[in-house]
């Protein structure tokens, strides 16, 4: 008898554990929940926007924000695991069908070198020579304070930043095969900051400890990116399965059209209009 009681207790405990994940959405039914995952570049922007949106609409929705990289976001939204997949790369032909890439902002991609080696500027041919591996010594780069070998830091193939860099700066030329591939913006910044002979590229938000190199004579700053003078600008997206509906449509519409959202975006990114 006692044993049976114990077993019932155990079973009900198990049932509780099993039911726990199921009860979370049930509680949230009162308010619609918008879940987002994906790009590490978009995540800080999405967090700031969500905080503002909650204030503006008086907590009309619940937000859940995860990270993982552009491709994770695209895969998650395609599989229906999240309502919005954040992406810092353009749509690709191999992406699953039925996805809508909603453009929410622009982001500047900066070329960076070590602070001890403040390069005065590079044009597209210069970038292609350095990142393509045909110039391997700083003495071959005009205006370099450093001598010796160039250490090139790039990103892994799955990164949205890598995709944007290849398209905007490299065009059809290939990356240097000996370049060190890093997993995130932060790792590239850290590597360039600790290596006097290093060069790399990061999102504008990751340029505090490194020197930003002007591209085609234009500084990589927020102002130049907004005015459209700076060439290295890419798009940030919120990806949905089919056109957004309901609370999601309201939220994306608020980001793209309201003044308040533009103001939030303009702190470190470039608003659409």
């Amino acid at each position, binding site marked *: 008898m006692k*044993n049976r009681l114990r077993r019932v207790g155990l079973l009900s405990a198990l049932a509780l554990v099993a039911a726990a994940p199921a009860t979370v959405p049930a509680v949230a039914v009162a308010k619609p929940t918008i879940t987002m995952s994906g790009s590490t570049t978009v995540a800080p922007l999405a967090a700031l926007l969500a905080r503002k949106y909650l204030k503006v609409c008086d907590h009309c929705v619940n937000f859940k924000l995860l990270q*993982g*990289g*552009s*491709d*994770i976001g*695209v*895969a998650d939204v*395609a599989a229906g695991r999240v309502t919005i997949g954040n992406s810092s790369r353009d749509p*690709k*032909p*191999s*992406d*699953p069908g039925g996805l809508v890439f909603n453009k929410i902002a622009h982001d500047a991609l900066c070329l960076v070198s070590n602070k001890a080696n403040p390069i005065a500027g590079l044009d597209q041919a210069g970038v292609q020579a350095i990142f393509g*591996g045909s110039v*391997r*010594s700083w003495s071959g780069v005009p205006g370099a304070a450093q*001598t*010796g*070998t*160039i*250490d*090139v*830091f790039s990103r*892994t*193939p*799955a*990164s949205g930043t890598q995709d944007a860099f290849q398209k905007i700066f490299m065009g059809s030329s*290939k990356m240097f*095969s*000996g*370049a*060190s*591939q*890093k*997993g995130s913006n932060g*790792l590239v910044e*850290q*590597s360039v900051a*600790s*290596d*006097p*002979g*290093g060069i790399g590229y990061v999102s504008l938000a990751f340029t505090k400890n490194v020197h930003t190199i002007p591209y085609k004579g234009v500084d990589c700053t927020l102002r130049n990116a907004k005015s459209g003078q700076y060439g290295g600008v890419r798009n940030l997206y919120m990806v949905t399965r089919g056109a957004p509906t309901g609370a999601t449509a309201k939220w994306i519409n608020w980001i793209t059209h309201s003044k308040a959202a533009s103001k939030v975006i303009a702190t470190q990114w470039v608003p659409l209009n």
Partner: protein
Amino acid sequence: MSTSGSPSAAQPRNRTDQRAEVLLGALACAVLVLIAFMIVFVFVKAWPSFADNGLAWFGAGGNVDEQMQNIFNSPADPSDYVYTMHAWPLLYATALITGISVLLATAISLLSAIFIVEFAPVFMQRLLRPVIRLLAAVPSVVYGLIGILVLVPFFGNHVISDGEKESVRYVIQLDGTSVLVGVLVLTVMITPIMVAITTDALRSVPRTWTEGAAALGVNRFRALRTVGIRAARPAIVAAGVLATARALGEAIMLSMVSGSVGFAPNPLDGVTFLFEPARTLAATVVDNSEGLSVKPFGQTIYAFAAILLISSAFLSFAGWVARSSMRKYTLQAR
């Protein structure tokens, strides 16, 4: 239900015991099912990559990173998927870094275990044991952070000379992330667990055996070498297997410090060889897990995982064979 396996077969068995036996048996079977399921899952996922390349998958040829880039940018049509992959540089890097670290760690751990068991004063033994356990439990990211913030810049800026950088600069860049730093940090990571296991094994060798040797007139070190270590050999092999498994599976730390290029370091480059970067299989999986959503790319990543799975299975098997062939010289207890 048969009761022949139980030691108390003569008495009627306790029902609680019976139930516990069934429950534990079910759990053990569940683990087996889980492993089988995992192996099948990984291999089914990985199969297209192996099938498309055949044995060339394991060979050298071309640039691994370029091949991965091409796989990643495959067209949407499944019949046009790109699978070409020659993974030799990754396999070689894995074997190289794991091999050197385990060899170093075995030598260091054996010597320090001998010191702790036989020569260290009691207060030092009391101090060393918890410290070694603590070291064994430090998460690998912590080692990775120390590596990338301290060791990599130090090697890149002070140890590797400009001449060495220039000698290979059109092939590969030497920025400090290297085989050497990877091996150093990995050795530090796996040594403590080997020391802990070896120490316990040496301690459990019966005192009378070494005393017998001492009575024949040999010194302490010789007695330990010829009797103690020989008796503890199965445990030393077990420690080696455990350490190798940890080294094989180490991903985060190596992805941070051993370089993120699919490059096969060339031993013909002399000392520079140690400064060249290399990326192991596990580090490749971690670095590229962002791209799992691209189907052929994901399948290639699963192929790397399958190789790791096979190597660790093979490792356990080899360890078991080695231990059972040594067992005749030693205690039967373990």
